């Protein structure tokens, strides 16, 4: 096998490409890393790629995780299996990454860009943002990530809620235990409990979609 020389090997699974998009300061890179670490827990070959540059300065932050037989750390247009958007406007902006089989999971909490707050442009009506994406993808799951995080007293855990939802849908070949282990791997002890609750809350929310056909691996190939 070619790849053995460049990556430690693990389970042979089909390729999965997950595109993450959000705004600087939302913790999107930690969420991305969590998905990567969880896959590694399962010995699934995985790569994660991130663009740092402007992370602290209010710009768009994009990252991705590819696993299994997918190894290119750049997701080309039309090639995302899953899009995790931490902000609805960014969900719409990620449309070019999607194809008819793509599952989009988006937070419904808007973060108004500076161009909007100073009145140079208008933040579109949220439903219109979802209408941009929904007709072109298999599913669009809206998540009140901030609300779910608050409901378990984990106000700063919206990013981990989103990962929980992804885990709950069952679309990844990664168990909940592995996500919990990944949390322990990444986070310092004092932050662990609220983030476990955030993961749980997201997981429960995501689990209600778990039966949907396009979320089951064998229907996706």
């Amino acid at each position, binding site marked *: 096998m070619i790849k053995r020389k460049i990556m430690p090997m693990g389970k042979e699974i089909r390729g999965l490409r997950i595109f993450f998009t959000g*705004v600087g300061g939302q913790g999107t890179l930690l969420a991305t890393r969590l998905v990567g670490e969880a896959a590694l827990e399962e010995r699934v070959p995985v790569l994660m790629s991130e663009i740092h540059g402007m992370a602290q*300065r209010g710009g768009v932050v994009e990252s991705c995780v590819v696993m299994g037989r997918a*190894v*290119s750390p*750049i997701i*080309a247009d*039309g090639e995302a299996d899953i899009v995790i958007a931490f902000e609805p406007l960014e969900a719409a902006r990620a449309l070019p990454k999607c194809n008819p089989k793509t599952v989009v999971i988006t937070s419904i909490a808007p973060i108004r*860009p500076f161009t909007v707050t100073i*009145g140079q442009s208008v933040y579109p009506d949220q439903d219109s943002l979802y209408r*941009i994406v929904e007709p072109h993808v298999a599913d669009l799951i809206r998540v009140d990530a901030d609300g779910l995080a608050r409901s378990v007293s984990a106000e700063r855990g919206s990013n981990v809620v989103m990962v929980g939802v992804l885990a709950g849908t069952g679309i990844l070949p990664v168990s909940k235990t592995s996500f919990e282990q990944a949390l322990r791997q990444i986070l310092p002890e004092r932050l662990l409990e609220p983030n476990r609750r955030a993961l749980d809350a997201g997981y429960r929310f995501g689990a209600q979609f778990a039966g949907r056909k396009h979320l089951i691996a064998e229907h996706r190939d």
Partner: protein
Amino acid sequence: MHELLIPQTSRPQFLLGNEAIVRGALESGVGFVAAYPGTPSSEIIDRFAQLGDEAGIYVEYSVNEKVSVEVCGAAAICGVKSLCAMKHVGLNVAADAFMSLAYVGVKAGMVIVVADDPSLHSSQNEQDSRYYAKLSGVPMLEPSTPQEAYRMTLEAFRISEKFGTPCLLRTTTRINHCRGPVEIGSIPPAKGFSGEFKKDPFNLVLIPAVGRKLRLVLLERTQRLLEESEGSPLNFISGKGDLGVITSGVSYLHVLDALIGMGLEDRTRVLKLGFTYPQPKALIAQFLGGVKKALVVEEVEPFIEEAAKICAQESKLLVDIAGKGKGLIPQAFELDSVKVKNAIGKFFSIDYEQPKVHQAPELPQRPPNLCPGCPHRATYYSVKKVFGEEAVYPTDIGCYTLGVLPPLKMADFLICMGSGVSTAAGFSKVLDRPVVAFIGDSTFFHAGIPGLVNAVSNDHRILLVILDNGTTAMTGHQPHPGVELTPKGRIEPKVSLEKLVRGCGVSRVARINPLQVKKSQAVLQDFKDKMNEPGVSVIISKSPCPLFEARIVKKRKKIVFRTDESKSCADCKKCLTELGCPAFFVESSGGVEHVFIDESLCSGCSVCSQICDSISPKRI
């Protein structure tokens, strides 16, 4: 214990490419590390700075890349393994040292990591640094994944030591900032960083006679390196079939995805090059001899493609070789698997339909911005008030380059680190307009000093504004020689900016706090009046980066600012059109527009309250 110092593990570690390089260097027994930060290479020196004491190795943030290569070169001449890391344009700064160190060579392993940035995510150009290997005769390795970055760092040290030459490890953003599983080994017991120097001037002092001798040594060494490359396991052929692909670096991953996606795994042979200088000519020729056609897939310039074409010519092979040459592989910007699939489809006449892509309609942009409370914004505001649109504003590299964006629009010319002050001098000589240059504190230490000395000695009529926020902010708050705030408290700076500027011969020097708007503008006005006389003026605009301050001294804000809601902003909004802090937002109620301040974003800097009477502080 630092996470990169842990003993060997059975579970692979999930490491950034940059961290994998650090681990590889530690396992190689590196004793001496120096670098100036630069995206995407910065995490290498940052991790070393975190663990240096614990690992018993010497780590320094050097003042620029040239200095880092020189200090590391000296360590390696004394038998201490060394590493420096820089972004691609950093190697331009270091090129003088690099080209001649290649002649003199090293006694212990020395690895120079050069991180290219295809697609210019955080850079001013898209140069392909691989040509530096060819230019200097220094061997070069190119990893594809974090696992390979780790392995190749070990190999780079081995090759460097075996051949007595520095070795380049060339990465790209998608290696440096890619995280992947890495199977680590163990770190040898620390040997410290004490070296030995044996005087040998006729091999170590590059006078012309020595240079002529070492030039021949270099050429002979390149021949031996070629043999090493020919037999290196870092170059390998996989797959079967008569379609050929030659690739390296992250492009290899795009190729794998493309071949799997197009079902061509069993029809294609892939030559993956990891030891990319000297290129293994015999291996390439052997590969070309076994395929009908060969597509060369690499980012940016046709570095391998040119070599492949030479190999074919030398071996009298008529195989069709394409890549950039036939316009199949784009020369600009990063590749991805779809771009590679398109090229494969066209070149090998295989049906491939690109995924149908839906473009999103026009959406509000989300450009990066100077942070709320950033002192650069305040400086720009005041300079613009005093010098206006007429002045020419050469600028430099750092967060403050974001001043190019509206509403500030305070950047007229920029090419590289340190160019602000020297180009200002050129502008001032040929234009009859005021010239005000900007440079950050770290950038001034890095490359601004010679330009300032030059301006003084040639009586250039310029004002240089040094934006002193007390740190190297853009790349993640690394220290520089003028740092005062440290995790251990406030220190006397090792090098005082003001003394340095005066030492360069500048007599008109002032220090302002840009957060005091009126006072700053008074000083600027005074300097503007004095600029009728020839000569250099310098204003040090000093106020710490608020993010850095919050992180280092745990400073918490005590006040925020708010607007008077009883007054209409409909006819003014100067706070937006002239200052443009991201904490502002506009809302209309009853058809009347009003500007508000988002308290969670407001840093409490007070600048807006000094330009608008309706803005007042509020304790929190």
